[in-house]
């Protein structure tokens, strides 16, 4: 069973090598998508067996980079595709537990959740409140079941079948909710497993800001009409 990790990276030249060396031993290969970075992120990727680097000539957003990486992984013959952030927020040691339900043929899609026991490190209180609001938004506006505990989880694993079936088109941050909606409304089997997210000053500064919640809602709204 070939497990490939997809890592979208935008201006991560300083951190990408660390993330890759942490992820590499846990998977059969890595696809890094440099999303039009201005800091030569692609060049900062160490030339290594099993590491494929693709480059978006223009910055198209995290969702777009994930989609490109996912399609690349399918071309490379992946059986399981794991989405991991480049900034080190996602603890790679949870990759095996994301892959396991698919390897056991118990699920087609596995979402990593911050709220299933593993205590997130350094999560600000306001962020926690916001994530609860996001969950309610997902239930009411998006029709995503309340069983989903983490509304904005970026760490997930897809079987090749699921990756082919889930046609996610949101280029920017709204892809999380979009993928949740498409998966939970399909006939694919899905499950959540606990993962740990590390909130550091650096990742908080670069990652999603709390005001992005409104942007995500707007992108999802416009997206409905652009389909």
């Amino acid at each position, binding site marked *: 069973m070939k497990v490939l990790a997809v890592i979208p990276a935008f201006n991560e030249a300083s951190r990408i090598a660390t993330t890759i060396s942490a992820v590499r031993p846990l998977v059969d290969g890595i696809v890094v998508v440099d999303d039009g970075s201005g800091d030569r992120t692609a060049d900062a990727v160490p030339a290594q067996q099993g590491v494929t680097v693709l480059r978006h*000539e223009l910055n198209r957003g995290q969702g777009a980079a994930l989609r490109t990486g996912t399609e690349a992984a399918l071309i490379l013959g992946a059986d399981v595709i794991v989405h991991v952030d480049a900034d080190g927020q996602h603890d790679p040691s949870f990759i095996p537990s994301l892959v396991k339900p698919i390897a056991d043929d118990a699920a087609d899609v596995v979402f990593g959740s911050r709220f299933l026991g593993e205590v997130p490190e350094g999560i600000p209180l306001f962020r926690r409140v916001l994530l609860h609001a996001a969950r309610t938004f997902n239930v009411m506006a998006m029709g995503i079941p309340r069983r989903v505990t983490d509304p904005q989880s970026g760490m997930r694993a897809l079987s090749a079948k699921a990756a082919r079936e889930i046609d996610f088109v949101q280029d920017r941050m709204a892809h999380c909710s979009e993928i949740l909606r498409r998966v939970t409304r399909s006939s694919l089997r899905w499950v959540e497993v606990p993962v740990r997210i590390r909130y550091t000053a650096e990742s908080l500064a670069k990652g999603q800001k709390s005001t992005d919640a409104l942007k995500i809602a707007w992108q999802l709204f416009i997206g409905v009409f652009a389909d």
Partner: protein
Amino acid sequence: MLIQFVLIAVLLIALFVTWKRAGQRVVTVREALGWSLLWVGAAVGIAMPWTTTLVANFFGVGRGSDFVLYGSVMLLFVLVFKLFVAFEKQERKLTELVRRDALKDLKKS
């Protein structure tokens, strides 16, 4: 009144240009008819302002000019919204193009 002459002159030019473009097949006849309706409607409202009050009263709005204002705001809302959607579609096409370029070498090997 001067403003009426100026506005109607502008609308006449718009009407002329619309049909000129239809003649050049830049817009379809259907589109030209739609635009013409808008220009003529506006010209009627300007030449005989009491007609807008008639329509306004039908909708329960007291004054014709108020009705025109509400209508314009709503129209602008719709147009801006359509613009957003069109923009999003362009964005997706651009992404598709960038993606195809990124995957190009992978497909060859």
